[in-house]
């Protein structure tokens, strides 16, 4: 995105009452007349003031035409504009861990509860409207708040099930990673799919009978009904107490959901790393010295495991994006109460990364469109990418060079136990995997500033900077 021009947020088209625009580092939202009226009304509510003060909703203020730097043709499209506090790095539910999605679900329900108790509602329930700022969940879609009409049910309930509850059920009850489901369908796990995924025995698990089975039955029975259910419910006396009863039960249900993270290949890596304590300290010192010298603003730690080196980086820069393929390791990093707020932990596989997808393939974007690293840590990773994921070493370095100007990369030799284990059941066609080949490839783009031998030369750290 060219930061000097105005860019329409490609993912903000669904609600016709508003649109998000980016200008330089600032975020604006064009609002229709009714959305603007709702916002003004919302601002007067004490419950909203409390939410804003506690940081649970993104800082937002209405701006005058004079204060608004957007082009006049954009301004002319809307009745008014809000400016929102920017979010450092936008992340998506399919990059979150179980507990991150659970935290987002809890915030969504908290907002509905407070809104409905005060005569408002939220018209949708999408986890894409929640972001992580300094380690905390923040709701960013302010126009989602609307005055609650009398007799109106909670219109976001079904979406809540499909985008929060069913993915959480999948992880908690089936031990199945929910991220591929969320990345496979932009609207989440639909009711009918959920009812086929959860079998007869699952109906005895908390919440499955009503939210999955019964919802699918009612959906099949009345999905094509020509009845105006909204008005029938209204005339039968549907009221906000019913919404609140449902929301409070959902809060309890979500709170109780747990995932016993198990079967992780890497979750214990930090405890069982196969180099000596002396070498380990050397590695920490090397990373610390490079970051101190290079002063990056944003660091990506690719293959972060439980975040040992992310923490070193976090103390020395503004933002760390810590990614790993392993859900359990990232979950540990997120749940560790000592994890600094400027680390954003994400489940992300370099060999199968978040794509550009959704409407026009730009509703949701890849990670590098949402964050640009000034420095990348790529520690104890390349043997996995080259040998396990079959990525040619040259292409891997091409990609890293396109991503960053500064790189700390670790070479793990073929004598190392990890590499031996990866090659044990494979035909060794990885002639490109050698120290000489790595150095030659790095030198195509970078200057190798420093290097550090470890484990009697079985592992080598390189600090590389583009000339």
């Amino acid at each position, binding site marked *: 995105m060219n930061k000097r021009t105005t860019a329409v947020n490609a993912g903000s088209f669904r609600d016709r009452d508003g649109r998000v625009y980016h200008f330089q580092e600032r975020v604006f939202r064009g609002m229709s007349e009714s959305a603007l009226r709702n916002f003004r009304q919302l601002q007067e509510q004490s419950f909203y003031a409390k939410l804003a003060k506690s940081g649970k909703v993104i800082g937002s203020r209405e701006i005058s035409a004079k204060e608004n730097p957007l082009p006049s043709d954009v301004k002319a499209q809307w009745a008014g504009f809000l400016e929102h506090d920017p979010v450092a790095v936008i992340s998506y539910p399919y990059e979150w861990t179980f507990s991150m999605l659970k935290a987002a679900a809890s915030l969504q329900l908290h907002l509905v509860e407070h809104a409905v108790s005060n005569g408002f509602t939220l018209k949708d329930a999408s986890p894409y409207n929640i972001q992580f700022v300094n380690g905390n969940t923040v709701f960013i879609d302010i126009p989602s708040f609307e005055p609650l009409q009398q007799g109106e*049910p*909670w*219109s976001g*309930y*079904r979406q809540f*099930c499909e985008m929060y509850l069913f993915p959480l059920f999948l992880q908690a009850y089936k031990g199945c990673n929910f991220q591929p489901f969320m990345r496979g369908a932009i609207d989440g796990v639909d*009711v009918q799919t959920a009812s086929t995924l959860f079998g007869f025995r699952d109906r005895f698990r908390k919440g499955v009978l*009503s*939210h999955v089975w*019964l*919802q*699918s*039955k*009612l*959906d*099949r*029975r*009345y*999905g*094509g*009904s*020509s*009845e*105006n*259910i*909204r*008005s*029938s*419910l209204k*005339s*039968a*006396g*549907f*009221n906000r*107490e*019913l*919404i609140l*009863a*449902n929301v409070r*039960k959902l809060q309890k249900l979500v709170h109780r959901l747990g995932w016993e993270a198990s079967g992780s290949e890497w979750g214990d890596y930090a405890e069982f790393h196969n180099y000596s304590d002396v070498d380990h300290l050397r590695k920490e010192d090397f990373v610390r010295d490079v970051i101190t010298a290079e002063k990056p603003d944003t660091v990506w730690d690719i293959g972060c495991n439980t975040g040992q080196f992310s923490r070193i980086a976090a103390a020395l820069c503004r933002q760390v994006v810590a990614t790993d393929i392993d859900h359990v390791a990232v979950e540990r990093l997120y749940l560790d109460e000592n994890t600094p707020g400027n680390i954003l932990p994400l489940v992300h596989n370099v060999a199968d990364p978040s794509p550009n997808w959704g409407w026009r393939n730009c509703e949701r974007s890849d990670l590098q469109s949402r964050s640009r690293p000034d420095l990348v840590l790529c520690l104890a990773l390349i043997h996995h990418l080259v040998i396990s994921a079959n990525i040619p070493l040259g292409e891997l370095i091409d990609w890293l060079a396109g991503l960053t100007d500064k790189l700390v990369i670790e070479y793990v030799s073929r004598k190392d136990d990890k590499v031996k284990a990866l090659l044990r059941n494979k035909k060794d066609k990885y002639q490109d995997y050698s120290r000489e080949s790595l150095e030659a490839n790095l030198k195509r783009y970078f200057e190798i500033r420093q290097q550090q031998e470890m484990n009697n030369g079985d592992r080598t750290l390189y600090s590389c900077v583009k000339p």
Partner: protein
Amino acid sequence: MRIFTTILLLFIFSDAIAYLDPGTGSMLLQVILGGVAAVAVAIKLYWHKLRAALGMARKEETEDESV
């Protein structure tokens, strides 16, 4: 209590298989999930339908439902 409201709701409206209206079943489910407070609503929904079926509904009531 929930079973009672569920049974009522499953028999309120005629079965229909057409294109999928994403919210209808989910809206009705919210009555069941509303617990004790929802029983009166479920009975009233059923009562309206019964009266309409027997041609006993007041004019404004049927009009209101067809909005």
